[in-house]
């Protein structure tokens, strides 16, 4: 797996500078053009997990084949984008990187397509060959340019590559196109008209497996046998002897190995050779027979000059129906888990994978999905896709999610909220608590008390809430006003999280009432804060001082009983202090106490009179 590195830290070089290397794997997730692949395949994956399992037999299979096709079309779309990017890249290194990606994606689609035919669709003898023909036609594109060139020329039959193109069509079983081209040559060469007619006829009559139920395999085999014999007769009669090209075509039609192998350059790959051979020697090949032909064809084609590449090994494993081998080889050859994770998941849904339990990941499907999703988590936004993948890993998904989600860097509040929502949806209480605590701590360190408080409320962290409330109160004492009023005003029931927080909320309420001139309510609240012991003792002096303006209103606010209460509170407070403390208290402190005593006494006097008079009020 490719590892890239970069040097962090001071770059002056020199023997004393420290060097820290940042090495990263799974670089693929950072390639912009692959983003589409990850995003769209995610959608297909989720759709598959949620799809109707109740559908049985044919409809289920059709559904799964559709899913497979969807995956492939995403790969193709990505390939297109990558190809465009390669073309427009100025930097040769970038161009080369994109080009490599294009060939990797192309290989992936090739493999996936074959797996779709053999495993998902599980094409039976007959349709199997047709599918394989489609597959070859789709993927061997090296000859496309040549074909285009000849077809678009003024006089195709005079083009030097004319016969090559005819051969290509024949090799790929594109009979109609071959016949069409041949007719042009026929027109130009009146002497060989007879030969053309015969060849044309043979090609037209070639029996092919049908997709529908119009004929049984046996019927087809019989027809094919007859046709094969007819071709044989014409060849042996020397009908095509005067034209080597046509003779070679006839030999190909007869499945002559050497004749086909001669056209190696036009086929370019051994699997093309395989399909051509099958087309012309055993069109009703059964799936389980493929392996024998595949091995033989690969050996013949490579001929000992070259050894199989990883792609060849993978395809061979597929022809041998060794699914686990396919997955294993792909895991080794490819640089990220995307391909094997999604393919294995699909095969698992096709109920094709035996569940051997691997102790390190439950089963193959889950193991690969866990690996893939884990890789996504190192990306600043793709991690969200990873969450859904973990959700569908029944055994270890949750614990993997718990571990990864805690490590997501929470650089912005939005990101933290996004992460939190995900945790809350899944009842991951410990993670919720932890994240809120981390955010609260961060806010507190940066002196953003309001933010810290709302995070600790969300974390249901009473101790922390108390601490922050104390800070608020301290701030108030120092500055005479509250910060973050909105937050405190709208605490609601969360106020009950901690006593100190309750006090903070209620204290602010007192100030609000006072501001709204609702004095008697304010007074009542103030008193209650002390008598119900909601206020901490350390704050009583402040509260009593707050009472002063209420005591000195024109109107009498505190009732007699309330005044007695206040006095009692004041005495409790001062009695608690030793004489020494009283001596040490500064003058301001003592003066405050005196002022309070005076104000309370005055109030008492007024209220006694007021309450004593007949019309009360």
């Amino acid at each position, binding site marked *: 797996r490719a590892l890239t590195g970069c040097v962090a830290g001071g770059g002056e070089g020199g023997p004393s500078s420290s060097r820290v290397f940042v090495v990263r794997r799974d670089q693929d997730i950072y390639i912009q053009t692959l983003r589409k692949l990850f995003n769209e395949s995610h959608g297909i994956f989720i759709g598959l997990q949620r799809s109707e399992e109740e559908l049985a037999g044919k409809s289920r299979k059709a559904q799964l084949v559709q899913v497979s096709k969807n995956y492939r079309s995403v790969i193709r779309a990505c390939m297109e984008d990558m190809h465009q990017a390669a073309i427009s890249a100025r930097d040769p290194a970038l161009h080369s990187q994109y080009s490599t990606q294009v060939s990797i994606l192309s290989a992936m689609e090739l493999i996936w397509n074959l797996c779709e035919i053999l495993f998902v669709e599980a094409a039976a003898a007959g349709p199997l060959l047709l599918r394989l023909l489609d597959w070859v036609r789709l993927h061997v594109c090296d000859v496309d340019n040549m074909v285009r060139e000849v077809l678009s020329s003024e006089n195709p039959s005079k083009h030097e590559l004319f016969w090559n193109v005819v051969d290509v069509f024949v090799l790929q079983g594109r009979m109609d196109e071959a016949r069409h081209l041949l007719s042009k040559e026929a027109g130009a060469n009146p002497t060989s008209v007879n030969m053309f007619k015969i060849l044309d006829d043979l090609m037209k009559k070639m029996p092919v497996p049908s997709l529908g139920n119009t004929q049984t395999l046996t019927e087809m085999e019989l027809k094919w046998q007859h046709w094969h014999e007819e071709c044989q007769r014409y060849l042996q009669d020397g009908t095509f002897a005067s034209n080597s090209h046509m003779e070679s075509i006839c030999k190909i039609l007869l499945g002559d190995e050497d004749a086909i192998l001669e056209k190696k350059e036009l086929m370019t790959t051994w699997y093309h050779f395989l399909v051509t051979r099958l087309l012309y020697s055993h069109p009703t090949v059964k799936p389980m027979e493929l392996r024998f032909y595949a091995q033989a064809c690969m050996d013949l084609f490579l001929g000992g000059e070259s050894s199989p590449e990883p792609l060849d090994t993978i395809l061979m494993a597929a022809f041998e129906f060794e699914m686990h081998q396919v997955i294993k080889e792909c895991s080794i050859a490819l640089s990220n888990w995307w391909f094997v994770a999604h393919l294995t998941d699909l095969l698992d849904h096709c109920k094709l994978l035996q569940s051997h339990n691997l102790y*390190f990941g439950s089963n193959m499907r889950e193991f690969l999905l866990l690996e893939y999703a884990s890789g996504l988590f190192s990306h600043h936004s793709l991690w969200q896709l990873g969450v859904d993948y973990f959700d569908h890993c029944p055994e270890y998904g949750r614990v993997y999610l718990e571990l990864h989600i805690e490590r997501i860097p929470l650089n912005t509040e939005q990101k933290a909220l996004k992460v939190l929502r995900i945790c809350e949806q899944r009842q991951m209480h410990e993670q919720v608590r932890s994240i809120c605590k981390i955010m609260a701590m961060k806010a507190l*360190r940066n002196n953003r008390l309001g933010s810290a408080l709302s995070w600790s409320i969300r974390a249901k962290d009473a101790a922390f809430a108390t601490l922050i409330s104390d800070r608020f109160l301290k701030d108030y004492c120092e500055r005479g006003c509250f910060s973050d009023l909105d937050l405190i005003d709208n605490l609601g029931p969360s106020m009950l999280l901690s006593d100190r927080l309750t006090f903070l909320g209620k204290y602010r309420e007192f100030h609000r009432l006072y501001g709204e001139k609702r004095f008697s309510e304010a007074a009542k609240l103030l008193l209650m804060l002390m008598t119900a012991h909601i206020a901490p003792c350390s704050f009583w002096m402040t509260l009593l001082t707050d009472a002063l303006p209420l005591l000195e209103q024109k109107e009498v606010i505190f009732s007699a009983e309330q005044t007695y209460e206040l006095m009692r509170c004041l005495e409790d407070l001062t009695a608690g202090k030793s004489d020494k403390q009283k001596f040490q208290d500064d003058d301001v402190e003592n003066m405050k106490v005196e002022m309070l005593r005076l104000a309370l006494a005055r109030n008492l006097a007024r209220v006694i009179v007021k309450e004593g008079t007949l019309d009360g009020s």
Partner: protein
Amino acid sequence: VWDKSENGDWHCTASWKTHSGSVWRVTWAHPEFGQVLASCSFDRTAAVWEEIVGESNDKLRGQSHWVKRTTLVDSRTSVTDVKFAPKHMGLMLATCSADGVVRIYEAPDVMNLSQWSLQHEISCKLSCSCISWNPSSSRAHSPMIAVGSDDNSPNILAKVQIYEYNENTRKYAKAEALMTVTDPVHDIAFAPNLGRSFHILAVATKDVRIFTLKPLRKELTSSGGLTKFEIHIVAQFDNHNSQVWRVSWNITGTVLASSGDDGCVRLWK
């Protein structure tokens, strides 16, 4: 200390000289406790540091400030490792020294990083080089520390010891010793526990070794409450072909990184 900026570049935001000897290890506390670091040194001390949010000018200049909150001076020899305990245990850390003493400290008030009290002193009999806390927060597992020794004296004593907290005696006691590890140990690391019943421990010694420790039933004798373990070695890699100095697990405990005298970092899956 390096910070990663918005565009993904790393910048050195703080660099300070403090210990009067080589600094052997640094370790981060869990972010729940704020931005907190611990360091340990040849100068026989370990220190706890906290990042202070400074003036906005500093932020612009890309600098951060770290203040020392406490110095732990109990050790009489070089302090070779310092590690914070898993966060579910509160704000706790363990140090180990060259004279074989492991000390466990706790800060009872997590908001006050200058108050740490020494809770446990464990004498390991061998010079210690590294420690690792078992990260498992499962109730089935008591707190556990693995201690590695790089003692070079010609004895065949086990160089890895496992200490477990005993709820009854309220002390840490030796639960296990890995008898097969007789070469000096340079680093040791418990893997994250994914709900497994058994523990996985990586050891950096003359090669890379990975052990599983499977708890057997607890012995409920009067001094008991100590777990017995079934120990297996599940991997041994000598690819470094030299002393292995550090081992470290990934988040899910599925990949182990090791570094060695051959100048290579290797990843094991």
